């Protein structure tokens, strides 16, 4: 005799929305839009909107597949335990089908409506995030977010490619900026939630190598990040508006990162400098991309 498993109610549509990590998607859409606007070529509004929609859908699909694969890790961490899968509000298979379907749809729509270069980079970014970062690196190496960070660096390239059909030096530097920005951003977060990562068995740098090494690495990765942020100006790819804005923003970032890199946390200090760096890093990226667009349009 078999006993039927209790029937799980169909997942709410809001849970499917939560699978796409809307907050992460916002930054991805913003950097993609800035990449497109920085290209400074006339873009049909409908096709431009479609390109941004495809970037958003691709990022959402990658987030859904990440949650599908990592539901066991998410269940072990306080920060993520209430996501639809670990909370038991959705079947795993539903998340898989949703992620694969939306990913395929976003790439096909980008290819048909916009251009094949943008579609190809979008496909690579989704596969990179899901296969290289989520499946391969995340549970195996403390360098997971260094290499995996490339996945989050693709949107400005996709936006530029959607507008022009090709890749140029400026979007490549924006790619490098996001790539080198990712380690200080994530490791500052990892410093104050490392117990969560340790409980879930994720080999984040503070868990595996300790706090001192992580702090030093935050300081070290800030150097190439600052170079990638500042070099568009002397190369003549941007003007003084970007140059001055990027210099000030990067100087503040470097000062915060230096403080985090050189200090030793004391019990009860609330990890305030690390939290401040994490919060500022998000604003930094948004402002620096806004500065690229403002500069390119003011010069135009």
């Amino acid at each position, binding site marked *: 005799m078999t006993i039927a498993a209790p029937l799980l109610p169909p997942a709410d549509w809001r849970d499917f929305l939560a699978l796409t990590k809307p907050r992460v998607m916002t930054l991805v859409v913003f950097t993609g839009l800035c990449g497109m606007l920085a290209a400074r070529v006339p873009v*049909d509004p409908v096709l431009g909107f*479609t390109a941004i929609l495809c970037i958003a859908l691709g990022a959402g699909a990658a987030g859904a597949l990440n949650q599908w694969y990592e539901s066991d890790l998410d269940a072990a961490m306080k920060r993520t335990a209430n996501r639809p899968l670990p909370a038991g509000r959705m079947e795993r298979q539903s998340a898989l089908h949703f992620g694969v379907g939306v990913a395929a749809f976003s790439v096909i729509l980008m290819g048909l*409506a916009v251009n094949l270069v943008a579609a190809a980079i979008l496909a690579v970014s989704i596969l990179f995030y899901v296969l290289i970062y989520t499946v391969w690196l995340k549970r195996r190496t403390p360098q997971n977010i260094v290499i995996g960070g490339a996945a989050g660096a693709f949107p400005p390239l996709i936006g530029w490619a959607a507008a022009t059909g090709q890749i140029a030096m400026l979007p490549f530097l924006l790619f490098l900026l996001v790539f080198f920005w990712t380690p200080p951003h994530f490791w500052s977060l990892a410093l104050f939630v490392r117990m969560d990562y340790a409980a879930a068995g994720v080999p984040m740098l503070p868990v595996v190598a300790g706090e001192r090494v992580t702090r030093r690495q935050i300081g070290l990765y800030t150097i190439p990040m600052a170079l990638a942020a500042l070099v568009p100006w002397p190369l003549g790819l941007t003007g003084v508006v970007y140059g001055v804005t990027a210099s000030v923003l990067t100087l503040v970032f470097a000062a915060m990162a230096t403080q985090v890199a050189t200090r030793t946390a004391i019990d009860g200090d609330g990890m305030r400098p690390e939290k401040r760096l994490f919060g500022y890093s998000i604003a930094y990226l948004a402002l620096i991309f806004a500065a690229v667009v403002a500069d390119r349009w003011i010069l135009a």
Partner: protein
Amino acid sequence: MNDPTPEHYRARQRARARVMALILGVFVVLMFAITISKIRAGMAH
């Protein structure tokens, strides 16, 4: 005996169907707009 489709199941299904219908409607409008844009771009060339 338990009802396999109690009211909250049906409510969820109705809400999902409404969202799906909305998404499909937006998709149809988007495809129409993309087609018009492509035709315009072709004529400009």
